[in-house]
Each structure stands twice: as structure tokens, then as C-alpha cells.
């Protein structure tokens, strides 16, 4: 189980000769259970991506901890092969000079879990799982459409059979028509590979479609937590504002 208990995370801001600490995240506590999708919904600048970086172990909270099965996530051996991520900007998350084959091989050889002989076979199987043919192995990122690039990023995220995948606005930059396809792919992979997702988004409608639990995030803290079904009767003012504005679009 992934346990997030961040009491505080601040960044130093320097303005001319004065520097002050600005808290980005305060009192965020939640558990992420296996084979479940936890949605984190919030406005831009609310601290969602900072939280994602702490869950990935890239950053450490100033006070508090993020633990995976009781061990601190910032230790590399805790998170290795257990947690991966797919980001919003598919263009900058894929190395522009590497082919899809190299992008996948790199992860597999680095982990040492896949033998050299089976690299190609495993890559083709991964691409098939995300709905791409073997012909994509020789393509470079600039030759892929947004949806295809995001499928490659998902294939790379599942290479090492992680338990958890952080999806940080992973479908926000895609066309509406492609968003539904990627969401259905994620749901399919969740079932077949028994994955757990932390789905970070600003779109409450999309979160309702894919998530089992929702955390509504505001100004770096949890405003409310509920299941998508409970949204119908929520009395939380901010959650209601999100729902009403979504419904009136």
C-alpha cells in the first residue's frame, strides 16, 4: 500500500535580497490501495504536480513522508520497478533522437530483467498491449501523433510491471476523440495487469469516468475526499462549484 502523509512542502522564493518560504502543500494524508484508481482533481497551481513528484520520490517533503509498503519512497530500492509515471507533455517525455525501440530497450536493459534475446519480442508484445503495431518500433517521436506518443509513454511505463502508475494530466493535451481511447486503454490495462493508478487531472468529468476514489485538491491541501458516486450528494462548496461549472459547459 502507498501511504502519503505530507505535513508540509515549501519552496524558497527570492525577491531581490529577501527570500521567503512559500508552503505549496500542507497536511495531505491519504492511502492508495492496490488495484484501485485514485483521482486527484484540482486547479492549475494547486500543488498537484508537486505532490506527484513527491509520490515518485523525486522530491522529499519538508515534514512528513511518502511510504510504499512501510518503506520511504525516496530510497531508490523502495521505488525501483514499483512505481512509474506518464506525464502530460508527451513530446518532451520521449527522447527526440531515440526510436520507439530504443526508448523501450533502454528501460528493459537498465533494469536487467529482460534478456537481450527477448528485447524485441517483449517490445512488440508491449506495443500490441497499448494498441500499436510492430511497425512503430522504428519510428521516432516526431513521426508519432499525440495519441500514439502517449501510447508509447504508457508502454514504457508498464515495461517493468509496476504496481503503481502516476498519470499526471496524461490525457489533458490530447484531442477529445483520443482522450476516450486512451482512457479505455488505461482501464483495460488496469484490469489485465492489476495496476493501481494515481490519476491527476483538472477534469472532474474524466476523473469520474476512471477513478474509484476522488481527492479534491485546493491551495495545496485536501478540500474533500469521496467516491465518484458521492459527488451527486456532496455539500462541499468547492466540489459543487466544480460540478456546476462542468455541467454548464
Amino acid at each position, binding site marked *: 500500500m502507498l501511504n502519503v502523509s505530507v505535513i508540509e512542502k515549501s519552496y524558497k522564493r527570492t525577491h531581490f535580497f529577501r527570500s521567503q518560504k512559500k508552503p505549496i502543500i500542507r497536511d495531505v494524508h491519504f492511502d492508495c490501495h492496490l488495484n484501485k484508481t485514485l483521482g486527484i482533481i484540482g486547479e*492549475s497551481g494547486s500543488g498537484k504536480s508537486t505532490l506527484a513528484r513527491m509520490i515518485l520520490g523525486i522530491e522529499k517533503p519538508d515534514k512528513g513522508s511518502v511510504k510504499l509498503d512501510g518503506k520511504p519512497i525516496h530510497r531508490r530500492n523502495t521505488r525501483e520497478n514499483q512505481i512509474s509515471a506518464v506525464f502530460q507533455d508527451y513530446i518532451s517525455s520521449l527522447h527526440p533522437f531515440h526510436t520507439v525501440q530504443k526508448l523501450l530497450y533502454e528501460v528493459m536493459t537498465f533494469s536487467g530483467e529482460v534478456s537481450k534475446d527477448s528485447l524485441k519480442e517483449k517490445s512488440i508484445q508491449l506495443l500490441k498491449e497499448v494498441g500499436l503495431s510492430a511497425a512503430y518500433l522504428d519510428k521516432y517521436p516526431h513521426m508519432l501523433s499525440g495519441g500514439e506518443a502517449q501510447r508509447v509513454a504508457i508502454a514504457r511505463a508498464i515495461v517493468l510491471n509496476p504496481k503503481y502508475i502516476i498519470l499526471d494530466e496524461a490525457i489533458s493535451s490530447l484531442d*477529445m*476523440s483520443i482522450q476516450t481511447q486512451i482512457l479505455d486503454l488505461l482501464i483495460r490495462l488496469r484490469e489485465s495487469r492489476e495496476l493501481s493508478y494515481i490519476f491527476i487531472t483538472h477534469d472532474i468529468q474524466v476523473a*469520474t469516468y476512471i477513478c474509484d476514489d476522488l481527492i479534491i485538491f485546493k491551495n495545496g491541501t485536501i478540500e474533500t475526499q469521496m467516491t465518484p458516486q458521492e459527488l*451527486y450528494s456532496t455539500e462541499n462548496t468547492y466540489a459543487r462549484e466544480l460540478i456546476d461549472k*462542468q455541467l*454548464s*459547459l
Partner: protein
Amino acid sequence: MSLLSVKQLNITDTHTHQQLVYGIHFQLEKGETLGIIGESGSGKTITCRAIMGLNDPRLQVEGQIYFDGVDLLQLPNQLLRQRRGGDIAMIMQQGSRAFDPSSKVGKQMFETMVMHTDLSKKSIEAELIRYMNFMKLKEPKQILQSYPHMLSGGMLQRLMIVLALALKPKLIIADEPTTALDTITQYDVLEAFSDIKKQVDCAIIFISHDLAVINKVADKVMVMKAGMCVESGSIEAVLFSPHHDYTKYLLSTKQKINHHFNAVMRGEYHA
């Protein structure tokens, strides 16, 4: 005479000899909003950039773009530059990329205003603050003194709209201005566009891949696919009784998520 009349617009990539836009044709009257829908790569953005004359030189633009009776494609660069910003303003998709990160937003907005208007410094500030209040931006003076990284994406997006309005253009081209925004900011920006339509008499071209957004702001719509216009007409005709299969496909794509959300909100899925 229409404010904007685009006739037989063809755009070709001269390096690859690939035609990107095929014979686009539309007209826009004063005070009217045209929504352009299409997936990435359908040619929406380069069509609008052709009106502004902002496409990469490798893209060859052919056809006629009459704005206020003048063919923009025949105008020399100097005269086109005066029109750009003054008569035609563009709101980009990413506010964070539209501003220079090393300079305060206020300074950048002043520079543009000085270039296109005869107003004094004081009047420019008053005008910017007036529109910032209109866009519900709190503490406008402090915002003008901020660098882009100190402001959120939604605020930068609204600042671009403020600048576009303060220049009092005849035409605003908004290229996916709400795509990167969260639900609440998206709603506020769309409300602002509705207010613009009521209070400022300018025409708008609104590009989006989100049909709900287009439905909220546009009077008429053009659907683009692979550089071609596959269907166009009033909002009612295109979005509520589409004829082309591609329009039907676009409409169907988000229905699954929409239906699920609406069912949850009707309480049809109980906890």
C-alpha cells in the same frame, strides 16, 4: 461587405510539397463568432495563422484573405504588422509561452499597447486595469509588476485576452484558449468571451477540439479534417443535426464520458 472573407485558401509545405490546407472558404461578419473544430493536424491553426501572416516561410499560402476589403496576402510585411495586434489580435493556446519569461507582464503589455495605440502611459495603465477588472483579475497593479512564472496558467491566459481587448481589434483569433485550463478557469474564460460578444463589437474566430466549448461561444461552426472543411453552418445545424460522418464521429467521442458523468450527477450510480 463581410469583415473577413477567406476564399480558396490553400497552404503547401514547400519542403515536402505536401498540401496541408485545401480550398478553405468562409466569411465572418462584425460581432459574429466562428468556431473551428478539428483534431490535431487538421489545419485549424495554420489556417488562422495564415490570416495573421504568422506561418513559417516554408508554408506557401495561396488564395484570398480579404479583411475590411483589403487582401492581406498582398500586403507588404510592414503594413501587415500594423494590422496584426491593432486590427487583428491573437490569443495563443499557452499563456506561459506567449510571454517573455525574463520581463514583467506589465512591461510587455505596455510595449504592445504603445506600438498599436496613441494612448499616454497613464491611459494605457487605466485601460489595462479596466479590462483586468472586466476579466475578474484581482489586484491588477500587482499582476502588472509580476513576471510570467509568478502567475498561474489561467491568469496568463486571461492577461492575453485583456491585451487583445485593450487593443480594441476588429477581429480576435483565439487558438484553443481554454484547452490547458482547469474546469473553473475554463468556465470563467468562456464567460468572459460571452461578455466580450455582448460588450465589444468585434468578430471572433475560436479554435477548439472541444465541442462543448464551441457550443457555448460560437454562432456558426466549421469542421476541419485533414486540411479540408467537411461541414459548416450554424451551431444548431452542425452540432445538433450533423450530416457528415466525421462530425458525427467527433460528437460521439466524448458522449461516453459525458453520459457517465451526467448519470452520476443524476444519482443513477449510488454509493
